């Protein structure tokens, strides 16, 4: 690792640390329904939305009503997005004339499910598949909607801890509206304008034919990129306008924009930890969660960065310079943009997989085995290291419930978290969420690694599904595992190296995104409902302290151990053994 590389990473973390409190405090005010400095301008818009949709701002919902609202909202989002894709041929803003032929039903299903669940797994490449209208009015809208829905769920779960002896946990429609109007829209607007100033494009022009310096003819895709780019990071969506995502110069032209993009990814998730602390009336609780996330983030980013900077022993043996010098970065530069280098690429890869963003500025498939293991592991832990907007916090609270329950008994009391007793109902819901996601990842990747299709099958080209891989052996297994982990974890980034645009992968990964989202959200909302109905146990010397270093260690350990115990065998057969073999100069 180079000093400048380490400093870049630490500088990023310092920026996040600095912004957590103001961002969190602002969101608390917004979600409590109090006035902010944005209200004079935006409050009329908010009330207009309520009036139009018949939402009563002051009426709370029980957990099942809240979940019902979320599910119906998600279902209609999915439906609209599916239809938009399928009828893009007859709709305007389509200079390239894309039609339903580019989006067969399985792909449209996959994309709709993926964007509605904040996953943004892309089995298509944007510039050769979707019209500007679908990108802007379909995908970009879902980027806002799915992010706001995730934050709403986090709010409901926070209220489970904050409220006492109540049946309701907030109003989904109100949370959704406030989040969109006061947080996502203003921040995206500012960020998009700044990105434009740096060279990100925003136009509705047809693709431009150009003649390159070498004299070759090339067509350069255009489009409303900036408006989608800002929310792509801010809402931890990750779906790129172009196939190359944030390694494309029109999406992410400079090291400065890279910096701002990773910053936007962590902005809301980090802020929400503070919001959590404020809403439950003890900011130390929020900082403890923040600390646990930070420990895991820093451990991951330095593990990946050092692995990438160390490079590949095979190349070293071939005499390729592997140590950094003034003129070249050394290490493993395969799949990385020269303008970003190793530190910024590793940082982006870890941030995007810690949070369930999925935007990439380098190709994870080309990382060294350990460099690739960290992103996979981040996703497999349910993305709780800051995590997706809202999703990271409620995922971490799920682990908090488990950690407190397992270890909390050791203080000789029925375990409590934030003054709420953790009882059978909460444990059951937490376990359901864990089991659901583990089952999806393990069973689907297991199926994909041994399935076989006959000639003429609709689902996949004839032969084994493993033929869709680019690499064999452990690396190929990582490619398959990463795909299902990314879908289930609602991350959406691709390890790449896997041809996932076949009905088999589109349907299974689409199902994984749905399961990965709702099999966590519904149990957690149920737990929130049960928690909100409880009394608050007053704090005493006998209370399990959940704000000190001890708790931070405990919850960090729980995340790692639960993740490791569930996925150790398959990771051993994937990246772990690949690393050992690479050291023996064997690659796949």
């Amino acid at each position: 690792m180079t000093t400048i590389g380490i400093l870049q990473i630490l500088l990023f973390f310092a920026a996040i640390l600095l912004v957590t409190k103001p961002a969190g405090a602002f969101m608390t005010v917004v979600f409590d329904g109090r006035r902010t400095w944005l209200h004079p301008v935006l409050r009329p818009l908010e009330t207009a939305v309520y009036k139009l949709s018949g939402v009563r701002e002051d009426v709370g919902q029980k957990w099942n009503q809240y979940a019902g609202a979320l599910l119906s909202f998600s279902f209609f989002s999915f439906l609209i997005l599916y239809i938009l894709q399928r009828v893009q041929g007859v709709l305007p803003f389509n200079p390239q004339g894309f039609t339903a032929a580019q989006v067969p039903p399985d792909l449209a299903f996959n994309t709709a499910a993926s964007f509605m669940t904040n996953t943004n797994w892309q089995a298509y490449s944007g510039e050769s598949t979707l019209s500007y209208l679908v990108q802007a009015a379909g995908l970009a809208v879902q980027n806002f909607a799915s992010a706001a829905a995730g934050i709403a769920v986090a709010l409901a779960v926070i209220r489970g801890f904050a409220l006492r002896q109540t049946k309701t946990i907030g109003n989904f429609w109100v949370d959704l509206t406030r989040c969109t109007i006061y947080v996502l829209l203003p921040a995206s607007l500012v960020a998009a304008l700044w990105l434009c100033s740096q060279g990100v494009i925003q136009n509705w022009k047809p693709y431009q034919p150009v003649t390159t310096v070498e004299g070759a003819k090339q067509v350069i895709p255009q489009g409303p990129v900036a408006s989608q780019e800002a929310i792509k990071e801010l809402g931890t969506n990750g779906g790129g306008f172009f196939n190359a995502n944030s390694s494309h110069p029109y999406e992410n032209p400079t090291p400065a924009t890279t910096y701002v993009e990773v910053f936007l990814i962590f902005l809301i998730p980090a802020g929400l930890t503070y919001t959590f602390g404020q809403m439950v009336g003890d900011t130390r609780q929020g900082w403890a969660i923040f600390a646990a996330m930070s420990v895991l983030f820093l451990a991951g980013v330095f593990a990946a960065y050092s692995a990438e900077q160390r490079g590949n022993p095979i190349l070293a043996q071939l005499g390729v310079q592997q140590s950094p010098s003034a003129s070249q970065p050394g290490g493993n530069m395969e799949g990385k943009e020269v303008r970003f280098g190793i530190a910024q690429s590793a940082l982006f890869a870890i941030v995007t997989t810690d949070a369930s963003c999925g935007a990439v500025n380098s190709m994870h498939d080309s990382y060294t085995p350990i460099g690739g293991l960290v992103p996979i592991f981040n996703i497999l832990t349910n993305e709780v290291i800051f995590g997706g907007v809202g999703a990271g916090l409620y995922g971490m609270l799920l682990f908090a419930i488990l950690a407190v329950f397992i270890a909390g008994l050791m203080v000789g009391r029925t375990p409590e978290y934030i003054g709420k007793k953790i009882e059978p109902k909460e444990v059951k819901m937490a376990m359901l969420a864990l089991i659901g996601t583990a089952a999806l990842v393990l069973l689907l990747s297991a199926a994909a690694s041994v399935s076989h299709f006959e000639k003429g099958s609709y689902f996949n080209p004839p032969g084994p599904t493993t033929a869709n891989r680019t690499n064999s052996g452990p690396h190929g297994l990582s490619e398959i595992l990463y795909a299902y982990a990314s879908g289930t974890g609602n991350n959406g980034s691709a390890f790449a190296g896997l041809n996932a645009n076949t009905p088999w992968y589109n349907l299974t990964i689409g199902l994984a995104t749905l399961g990965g989202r709702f099999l966590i959200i519904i149990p957690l909302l149920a737990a929130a409902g049960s928690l909100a109905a409880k009394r608050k146990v007053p704090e005493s010397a006998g209370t399990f302290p959940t704000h000190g270093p001890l708790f931070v260690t405990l919850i960090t350990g729980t995340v790692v151990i639960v993740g490791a115990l569930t996925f150790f065998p398959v990771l051993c057969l994937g990246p772990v053994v690949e690393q050992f073999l690479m050291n023996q100069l064997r690659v796949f």
Partner: protein
Amino acid sequence: MPVSTVSTPQTEDLTSLLPGRRGQARPLFDPQILGRAAAEAVRKLNPLTLAKNPVIFVVEAGAAFTTCLLLRGAASGGSGLGFTVQVTLWLWFTVLFANFAEAMAEARGKAQAESLRKTKSDAVAKKLIGGRVELVASSQLRKGDIALVEACDIIPGDGDVIEGIATVDESVITGESAPVIRESGGDRSAVTGGTRVLSDWIRIRITSNPGETFLDRMIALVEGAQRQKTPNEIALNILIAGLTLIFLLAVVSLVPFAQYTVGDIHTGTVPGVTVLVALLVCLIPTTIGGLLSAIGIAGMDRVMQHNVLAMSGRAVEAAGDVNTLLLDKTGTITMGNRQAVEFIPAGSASEWELADAAQLSSLADETPEGRSVVVLAKEKYQLRGRSLSEHDATFVPFSAYTRMSGVDLDGRRLRKGASDSIAAFVMDQGGTVPADFSGISERISRSGGTPLAVADRASVLGFIHLKDIVKGGMKERIGQLRAMGIRSVMITGDNPLTAAAIAAEAGVDDFLAQATPKDKLEYIRREQAEGRLVAMTGDGTNDAPALAQADVGLAMNTGTMAAKEAGNMVDLDSNPTKLIEVVAIGKQLLITRGALTTFSIANDVAKYFAIIPAMFMTTFPVLAKLNIMGLATPQSAVLAAVIFNALIIIVLVPLALRGVRYRPSTAASLLRRNLLLYGVGGLIVPFPGIWMIDRLLVLLGLV
């Protein structure tokens, strides 16, 4: 080397929250119990019984599966079955060990139930029907019947004395051989079926039907027949069942992953079913799964060993959760009785005069307070006890009406009693009350004492300062409770002044003075409304509503039936201080569960390092790098992990039955200590454990 002598505590060890086991306790490994538990362990192999315990059920299913494989292999004359045989055997042992742990805990209770049952003879009852005695079997008595019990009769059922007074031997229930007095009216009217009247006679009204008596309930409880899972146990069961499912997924999905890998690399073989079953059994939390119910039963048993009868496991658990303890002042915080500590003359009387009069008026007073006056007079004023037989003495006993007692002696009329009663007495005799009378009285009250005024005819002589003596070590104990986050509240009938002084001396957090049963009830409701759990003790019928309202209500066995019905625990020793011990036992129970769960899960890490490299050694020899324990062969590694997994259950049985060591301290320090011990310990211990078993297997040539 200097030998430091530690002063031994007096009769009751108040400095430790968990006193050593009592006389009733049986040794942990009684051969008879061991034998019975071993037999029971085999009987529990019945899958229908085992289905209640999902973790162990999965182990049994796995064992049955490998047994089938083995039989099929043997039938087809397969060779090299030694490994499968051993794994299968150890899987069955795992199930048996888990069953054994549970059976051990149950057997201890059953042994106790049996000894209780022996005492429950079907006595003949003298049923009273319209004044006529009819002999019936006691099992025919119903609620509301009236029975006559005379000397040497067994009391035929639970009841209330409605007439008479008798001494009763209750050793069957309490283990205490000294007889107790039972009489009609008041708080000592309850009698328990199965106990024996030693002298005199009583008439009782039966209060419970046969099969529902206290003794029946007690037998059912210690036997564990009515054992219901507590909420906490249910939650833990969900957790370990969930983990079992996750590990099942991990192992099942490993088959296709292995097929993929072997197919791609073209070397090695897919791990066999035996190894996969071994991996699964090692990963699922068998340790806690096998010990969970034993911990619960043993917790109830531990309460029983302290001579407390808990009506449900839920009550014991709630005791661990308690936030507020309501402690009765008398008998719990202070010695049962007050002692004279000072004579304070009033008016013109001299100290000696006062002491003399106080002694004379107390000579016939057999109450502890009265005796303490005589003792003080002797110690401080060298006034020997005098015989009053040669004098013309008439004793005036204490009565609730006059609130005075004393003696008429040679024309003197000596009285002692409450300030206002004495003042009234003196004025009645034509005297006046000295100017400093009320000042002294108030000063004594404020210091936590009780002023007892002494008068001779029309003149007030002064006061006896009676003081409540706070039990030795009580302050430390209250301090420990505070460290555990438990508020202690003193309940007393005293006036607020006296109460405040004693509260300060004992170090309690709050007090409730001049408390009526209604005040108690309201205090409990208020605490509960703020989310706190409350524990209290009580014995009288008027305590019943509060006992019922409290989360933990410890009724005294000497108390009324109503109180015993209302509470969820009965202290057979009738020692209210026991409440603190019950809280400690409740906490110990929860800590034991948490500790073994953490230990069980932490163990998995080492087992992965043993088994995963062994499984794929043929495909990826390079995975030997993960074999950090340096286990000899893949087979020895798998076998060592399985054996460790089985043996750890047996090793931890004593810990499960006895409970982990518990020292009262703050939650933070408890957590730090236990997390280090059982969490980090659980991560580390299996590594040397598995390594040693592996060495042994190689030495014995078993692999």
